[in-house]
């Protein structure tokens, strides 16, 4: 079983790998359905209001409708949604820094958010709610224990219920797969081997003797520099793009190394894939190139520029206007759901008790109780 085959068994490959086209198609479907639902929900709400206000005075009627936007709802487009998601991903990093959680936790949380919003729309579930739950989940999956009450306190203006309200929702959105494969550990492995290669500790890889002779000068220092740079890229750019959906962790890591030191990385890849092996070397290099351009595109500065900020503010306002009114209060919905279940339980208990009493009564009958069918 080769390394690649082992990667193909992961859920990240099986469920969370897309080509750019299919990802876009999926997102637009999600957006379309969510928009329809928002309109539907708003219409329902208006009808309900109209009914309830029919018997109240005209003055009150005018006040209550003001909470709901008039006319046709202006929904977010796919691009707008993506921009907002990117913004909230940055927010997640900041929140993570504030809570002093390790990089892996932040990275996992961001992937959760990205995965969740492929099949769910911002208009249905607000990212500010989902973000907290995602970060809380990430502390668990990455083995960084954080007590829930402390977590909520540290975020501020948050109650534990707020974090837990969307718990199952997020789990379902993640298709019950919590495993996220990151390129961080892979980078350590590659750097470790590169360092060993630079010192000549490792015999040349089989079939790559000629290439290994042509290794770059001053390799030890270059490896060290590349390590730091690549790590920076992995910590920010790789998370904020869709790289995780289109490339494997190993490829993302190599691409980051490539940005940091192109000559070194190309030499390394050539060591690993002999040129004769059916163009695999070229294909890998091309894929890494593609990934590298994707990583370079994104702006990693944590503070958005003024124009961006203005745009984001407008988007946030727009989002507030087109949110699905039925899904706003997640905590309330959660509570209602739980209580609903409980009341059903009570009903069953009562019914059973009645049946028991009845059968006891019939048991005293001369010919015993009726035969059960």
């Amino acid at each position, binding site marked *: 079983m080769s390394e*690649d085959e082992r*990667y193909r068994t992961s859920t990240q490959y099986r469920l969370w790998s897309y080509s750019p086209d299919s990802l876009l198609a999926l997102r637009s479907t999600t957006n379309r*359905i969510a928009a329809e639902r928002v309109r539907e929900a708003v219409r329902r709400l208006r009808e309900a209001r109209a009914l309830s206000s029919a018997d109240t005075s005209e003055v009150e009627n005018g006040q209550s409708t003001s909470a709901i936007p008039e006319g046709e709802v202006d929904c977010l487009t796919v691009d707008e949604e993506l921009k907002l998601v990117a913004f909230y991903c940055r927010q997640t990093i900041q929140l993570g820094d504030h809570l002093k959680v390790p990089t892996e936790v932040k990275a996992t949380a961001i992937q959760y958010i990205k995965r969740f919003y492929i099949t769910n729309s911002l208009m249905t579930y607000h990212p500010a709610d989902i973000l907290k739950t995602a970060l809380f989940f990430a502390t668990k999956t990455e083995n960084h224990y954080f007590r829930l009450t402390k977590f909520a306190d540290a975020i501020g203006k948050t109650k534990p219920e707020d974090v837990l309200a969307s718990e199952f929702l997020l789990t379902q959105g993640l298709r019950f797969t919590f495993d996220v494969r990151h390129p961080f550990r892979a980078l*350590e492995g590659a750097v470790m*081997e590169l360092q*060993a290669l630079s010192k000549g500790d490792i015999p040349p890889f089989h079939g790559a003797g000629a290439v290994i002779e042509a290794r770059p000068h001053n390799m030890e220092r270059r490896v060290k520099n590349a390590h730091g740079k690549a790590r920076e890229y992995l910590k920010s750019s790789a998370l904020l793009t869709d790289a995780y959906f289109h490339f494997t962790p*190993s490829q993302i890591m190599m691409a980051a190394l490539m940005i940091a030191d192109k000559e070194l990385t190309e030499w390394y890849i050539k060591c*690993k894939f002999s040129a004769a092996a059916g163009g695999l070397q070229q294909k890998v290099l091309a894929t890494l190139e593609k990934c590298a351009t994707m990583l370079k595109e994104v702006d990693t500065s944590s503070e958005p520029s003024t124009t961006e900020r203005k745009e984001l503010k407008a988007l946030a306002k727009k989002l507030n206007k087109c949110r699905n009114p039925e899904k706003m209060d997640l905590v309330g919905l959660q509570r209602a*759901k739980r209580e609903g279940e409980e009341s059903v339980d009570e009903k069953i208990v009562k019914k059973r008790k009645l049946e028991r009493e009845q059968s006891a009564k019939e048991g005293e009958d001369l010919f015993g109780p009726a035969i059960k069918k």
Partner: protein
Amino acid sequence: MMRNGASKAIDNNPSDDICPVCKSNRYLNPSLQFLINPECYHKMCSTCVDRIFTSGPASCPVPYCGKTLRKKGFHKAFFGDLKVEREVDIRKRVGAVFNRRQDEFETLLDWNNYLEEVEGLIFDLVEGTKEEKLKAEERLKAYRESNMGDIEENRRAGLEQIEMEKQREKAEKEAVRQRRLAALREEEEEKLDVARSKRDVLERLANTDEDANKITQQAQKIILKKSSARRTLAESVESNGRARDSGLTIRGLKKKEAPIAEKPYDPFGGVDLTPSRYVLQEDYDNEWLSNAKSDTRHMAGGYSLQEYYARTLFEAFSGLGVFIEDEVAGRSLPAAPASIGTAAAAEASAAKVNIEYKMELDDVF
């Protein structure tokens, strides 16, 4: 079943008292003794046997029997009922040939089938018509000839078992005898001890002017101590003896075949996980790990650097040759199995479209 009917059934059956050949009566000859020959099971008195068969083989004097009998074949009947006698003889004869043991069979069913077959053969021999008897005899003979080696082996095994049984019994008896002797000896010693200490006490009472009570108490204590010491000694000896005994009886009880050497257990079921893109080294230089390498606090918990090396390097190259864009493109099409890595992946990808749309419509709240 009547055993030794010759002496017991005298009164109930008059035919037991008169020899069918010479008609001599037990009343006239109290030492009358009947003999039979397993050829035909006709009984006759010992005088008749002497008279007719001493000069050599002759035919049976009973009318219409006419079997040729020899004097050597005559013996006293063990059972009063000659039918039973005959059946037992037949059983002995068949049992000597069909002497398989249960552990030779693979299943209980096979063993039971075998037993039933043997029983059928015996029934044919005992109760069957002439033809059946002949047939059964032939089968018996054929079986004996074809399985000579096995029969001999089983016979020997049976003898050995009996021998072993005898030995064990003997050893047990011997052990019991030894125990009894030891107990006797112990009793004797104890008596002697008590007598000696009493004498000591008396002597001390006579010779010294210590407190009489104290001296007697001390003596009592000494006796108790000695007896308890003796008991523990005896126990240890006994346990030693038992251990040796059990070793004797167990040895050779079961002849086991040498067990087939099992292959070492392979937890991965033959999956080869050797990396194809790198060679894992024993040790790597890593400034972040230099602390951990020398610090016992890291290593005490069983932290293995090799595990870390293996994992990081595996992750560095796992999926480097997986081109998602190419591979995922064929996913929604069921007729593209080549691009799907595992069975699970195929399953997941086949069901994928449905899942997504279902999720879209299925709400938690």
